[in-house]
């Protein structure tokens, strides 16, 4: 589908620059939202649209994400209400009932109805039967990807001796002394230029492994923090 929302090329370039600058503001959901946008665009194309405004597509994909989330929340609530942890098809159908209750559906007023004969289910069955089979345009990998936790290793695992009796051997080992060595090499006005240059180079040499250590620590820390996103799958 082509983008027909921009009147001239300049606006298009401005918007591209804008999207480049917004790259630094990365939400954790960007990948999923992008997939949702593609799926929504494909469905709109099948309905008959030939192009779209960016804002309209973003709004609709946001709403779709909200719809799925809300349906899951409602189904989970219905399952918990029945004393179950895992939801079943009737919980989902009841959740659909709640979401569509603004419009109404056939069979709602009938007390003795079977939930499977509701208008909602019949509508879905008809929709699925009528609509053509549109496959998603891309192959979607499983996400979020959970990286392996790189463990630092305890004193005992590394075969090192803890520095004192007060430190148990099952605690993580201290990092190498190189990474946190501090040489006092602060330049002041009385030092000569060559000394300053030398000290600058030494500082940089020390700072690099320290930086690497900090990055590694933050990296491992983030891995531990982000693994909870994919923790739902057991």
């Amino acid at each position, binding site marked *: 589908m082509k983008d027909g929302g921009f009147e001239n090329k300049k606006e298009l370039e401005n918007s591209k620059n804008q999207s480049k600058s917004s790259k630094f503001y990365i939400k954790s959901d960007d990948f999923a939202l992008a997939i949702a946008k593609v799926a929504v665009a494909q469905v709109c194309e099948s309905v008959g649209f030939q192009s779209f405004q960016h804002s*309209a597509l973003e*709004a609709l994909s946001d709403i779709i994400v909200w719809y799925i*989330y809300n349906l*899951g929340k409602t189904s989970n609530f219905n399952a918990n209400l029945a004393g179950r*942890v895992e939801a079943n098809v009737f919980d989902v159908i009841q959740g659909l009932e709640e979401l569509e209750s603004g419009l109404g559906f056939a069979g709602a007023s009938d007390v003795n109805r079977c939930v499977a004969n509701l208008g909602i289910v019949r509508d*879905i069955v008809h929709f*699925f039967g009528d609509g053509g089979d549109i496959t*998603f345009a891309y192959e*979607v990998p499983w996400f979020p990807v959970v990286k392996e936790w790189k463990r630092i290793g305890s004193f005992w695992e590394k075969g090192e001796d803890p520095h004192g009796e007060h430190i148990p051997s099952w605690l993580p080992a201290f990092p190498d002394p190189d990474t946190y060595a501090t040489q006092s090499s602060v330049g002041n006005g009385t030092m000569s230029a060559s000394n300053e240059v030398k000290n600058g180079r030494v500082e940089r040499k020390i700072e690099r492994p320290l930086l690497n250590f900090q990055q590694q620590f933050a990296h491992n820390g983030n891995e531990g923090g982000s693994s909870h996103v994919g923790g739902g799958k057991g």
Partner: protein
Amino acid sequence: MNHNPQSSDGKQDDDSALSDFLASLMDYAPTIPDELVEHYLAKSGFQCPDVRLIRLVAVATQKFVAEVASDALQHCKARQAAVVKDKREKQQKDKRLILTMDDLSKSLREYGVNVKHQEYFADSPSTGIDPASREE
């Protein structure tokens, strides 16, 4: 699903219709991929090992999108028909159907979703005010 041995034929038909439908879901994948649906369902706390339920949610979502999009399409076509009446020459140009925020907000309003698009964005609070009052 519960199979009540004392259920009437009607109920058994309904149950079988539902189970047949769920089985058919596995043959034809909906447009919205399973991974996306599972991601958001996991976020909301929905737990189910059955893939057919994921597909059911995906199909329901796809139906919702299709309904909203077709309503927006009706609004778009109605607007174009009103314009084309006056200008027959531009009919060829206006054949492109574009999904706009206007049509989308109109069709979403019927589903209880209020979406309002900003008309314009002002640079500062004093934009658009008379120069005389702005100096004050």
